């Protein structure tokens, strides 16, 4: 039995937000969001409600990676299968510059985008989407302890990135 549209609405923001973090393109994120919502409509009734968030994020991740591979195919950028996650998800932005913006939130947003995978995804899933550790492990297909180690590294890299562009006064407690 398909899920009613009202049950889909609860997941729309997390799907779109995560897809946008991975794809950095609003149109592609919108396309992935629609596809994932339709899959959730078809299959969501067979998934326990407490498991739907993890299921949705996993499907979103896979769909976004597919979209990135398709984008690369269109631009004839060939990568090896082993490197595909890293190369297609690597950030092409320049390092965060302290002079670009004094807004902490904007700097944090940019610093998250600058993180490499899988740290970026794990930080987003834990710190923004507030998924439990085991759900993140299921989404990323990683052992639970690996998720915790990667989260620790991701948090540290965020702090290092922000420290590099905030003044000493702004860093004082």
């Amino acid at each position, binding site marked *: 039995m398909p899920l009613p549209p009202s049950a889909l609405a609860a997941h729309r923001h*997390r799907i779109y937000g995560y897809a946008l973090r991975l794809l950095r393109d609003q149109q592609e994120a919108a396309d992935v969001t629609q596809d994932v919502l339709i899959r959730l409509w078809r299959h969501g009734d067979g998934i326990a409600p407490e498991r739907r968030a993890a299921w949705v994020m996993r499907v979103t991740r896979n769909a976004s990676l597919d979209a990135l591979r398709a984008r690369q195919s269109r631009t004839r950028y060939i990568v090896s299968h082993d490197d595909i996650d890293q190369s297609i998800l690597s950030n092409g932005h320049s390092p965060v510059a302290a002079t670009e913006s004094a807004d*902490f939130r904007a700097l944090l947003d940019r610093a998250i985008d600058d993180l490499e995978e899988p740290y970026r995804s794990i930080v987003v899933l834990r*710190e923004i989407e507030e998924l439990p550790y085991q759900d993140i492990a299921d989404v990323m297909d990683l052992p639970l302890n690996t998720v915790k180690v990667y989260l620790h590294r991701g948090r540290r890299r965020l702090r290092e990135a922000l420290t590099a562009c905030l003044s000493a006064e702004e860093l004082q407690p």
Partner: protein
Amino acid sequence: MISTAHPDLDAYLDGAMTDAERHAIEAHLASCDACAAELALAERISEEMPALRGQCPDDVFDAAVARIARLERDRAPIRASRLRWAAVAAAVAVIGVAGLQLLQGLSSDRYSPEEVAEARQQIELAFGLVGKATGEASTYIRFEVFPDQLTEPRDRRVDIE
């Protein structure tokens, strides 16, 4: 300049420490400006994170709902056809069972041979009609319910599975 993060800083932020460990960290923070600054930064990051949650535009969600509505409409005729087929099959089964029970009843001694012969003729006529209905149902199923699967696939957008 901020030093390397204290290895227990994240555990402290997550509340994943014993009371003794927490007291030790807090004593350290009281005397280490660098670690205190890093903890303040980590707490500030944690406070700002929820505000960075993505916001799906209304038109994106509305477009998904519209596509779902179209998919629902495409599915409805097939569901109705299958319900009709199920009703036909149920009717055939009921008639078949009733006919068999009648034939068994006719073997008793309560009826004359002429009555039995006439009844058998009527039952055979009924079974003939059932057979015709079954054949028509089979044709209906083949060409109306599953025309695409049994002949050529319909030209439609392939949804992601």
